[in-house]
């Protein structure tokens, strides 16, 4: 313990933040804007206090950088190695994840529509799809690396396989979400299969489809990163993580994880925003 002051300061900040949060969460604000601001401030304050505690412990106890770098170290590294992180991001996210995500979700969606037309296929494929969703699909990564080479197509292939089944299962479930009454109504309008699909059943399935899109956005990043552990050109987030771990430069690993976390949360947030726009009619968004 070499810098007790820093540690004590961090703990004091944490306690203060906790007390403030206690006060804030007990508060009963009159208007909605204040309530929203408070609901946003509490988690932010909590996160900041955790960061301060982390900083205080690593600095106060002089934790070696190879075990746990302080947040300030990570930030420095993040700023200093922008070009490398950007190149990794392009390789892993913009190439492998986006391509695989689009292909996997698209294929799952189209398969679901075909499956929905054929009841026999639905009965046969759904149990298998549910089963595969629970399997450790990332294990397919070494095989894909052998088939499609070291560059990003093999990672995209892993992502395709990982995202296909959640999309298939959810879309099939969503297509049966439209009520019998509404379907009967479409029949009385003499609408054909395509019209019923586009005007009634697909909109009704949207909450399910967006659910799958959200699950898949996380799965896709995981798939691409893990697939890079099996061989890659010398660029990519998974490659960087595994090599920098080997060199014990953990600040770089944390910087890469921070990038992955921001990319993951942002894409999740983006999908949620689109969901809000598309499924504005859904009860969970009505105010």
């Amino acid at each position, binding site marked *: 313990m070499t810098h007790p002051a820093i540690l004590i300061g961090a703990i004091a900040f944490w306690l203060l933040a906790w007390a403030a949060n206690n006060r804030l969460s007990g508060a009963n604000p009159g208007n909605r804007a204040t309530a929203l601001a408070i609901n946003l401030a509490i988690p932010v304050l909590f996160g900041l206090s955790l960061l301060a505690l982390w900083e205080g412990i690593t600095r106060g106890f002089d934790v070696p950088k190879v075990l746990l770098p302080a947040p300030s170290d990570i930030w420095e590294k993040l700023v200093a190695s922008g070009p490398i992180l950007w190149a990794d991001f392009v390789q892993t996210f913009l190439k492998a994840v986006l391509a695989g995500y689009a292909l996997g979700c698209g294929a799952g969606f189209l398969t679901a529509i075909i499956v929905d037309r054929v009841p026999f296929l639905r009965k046969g494929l759904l149990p298998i799809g549910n089963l595969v969703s629970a399997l450790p699909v990332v294990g397919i990564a070494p095989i894909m690396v*052998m088939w499609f080479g070291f560059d990003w197509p093999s990672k995209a292939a892993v992502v395709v396989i990982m995202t296909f089944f959640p999309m298939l299962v959810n879309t099939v479930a969503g297509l049966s979400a439209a009520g019998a009454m509404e379907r009967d109504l479409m029949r009385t309008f003499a609408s054909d299969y395509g019209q019923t699909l586009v005007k009634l059943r697909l909109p009704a399935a949207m909450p399910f489809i967006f659910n799958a899109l959200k699950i898949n956005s996380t799965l896709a990043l995981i798939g691409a990163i893990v697939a890079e552990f099996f061989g890659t050109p010398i660029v990519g987030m998974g490659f960087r993580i595994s090599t920098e771990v080997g060199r014990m430069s953990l600040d770089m690993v944390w910087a890469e994880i921070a990038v*992955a976390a921001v990319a993951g*949360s942002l894409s999740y947030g983006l999908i949620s925003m689109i969901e809000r726009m598309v499924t504005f009619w859904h009860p969970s968004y009505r105010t």
Partner: protein
Amino acid sequence: MTFLRDKLLPVGTIVIAIVVLWYLFAVILNAPFARQLAGKPLPFGDLVTATMSEQRPVLPAPHQVAAELWKTTVEMRPTSKRSLVYHSWVTLSSTLVGFALGTLLGIALAVAIVHSRTLDKSLMPWIITSQTIPILAIAPMIIVVLAAVGITGLLPKALISTYLSFFPVAVGMVKGLRSPEIMHLDLMRTYNASRPQVFWKLRWPSALPFLFTSMQVAVAISLVGAIVGEMPTGAVAGLGARLLAGSYYGQTVQIWAALFAASIMAAVLVAIVGVARSVTLRRMGVREA
């Protein structure tokens, strides 16, 4: 009879179709190497038999994988380093430890969140955000850092599984512990029930269905965590290490066998939790639709 018509027949047909397709692809994908090996144009029948028995095929035929599985599980002593039972056990043990820890942690966190408004407002958003983050990326770091402190073996992998599996349990349990209706909570109030009584007699029982559903997700993801935890650090034992070794030495049959072992294990684990779920719920008098 409806079981046969609605379950067995369609599922069986699809499975058979997958196997047939698999054989077809095995022939197509392995044919170039078989031709190269023979050095001369092969008649079709010979070509097919050649593609079925390559040492390191691009895509091993199903029966090759099945034979490898049989050879490495039944015909080998379970203690042998080449036995899949041995590797599966290594992975399974850290999966189970991680799953148990993760479930307990998730339940504890959910209980705290339900009972503390501050914790709910400050922690819950972070729990949800953390689900959007590719957590698995930190697996290599956890292993290496813990190894540097002197913790090796089962525990680091189990911690990765814990980390992965406590999220679904925590989120599901918060939902479950909040699922009792206001009317029931009011009834408990009129009985002058204490907080622990409300918890044990009302909240806990109504949360159980949620708990089991999230445990099914958690056990599957624990296994993924354990496998990935074995990959990047050159672990010598476990299904993940088996996958990695297979990919280094081009042993495709070994990779597929490990993959199938992992899949069978995942299916069995999820099924066990499912059985526990229906047994418990039936005991509690819940009628499942």
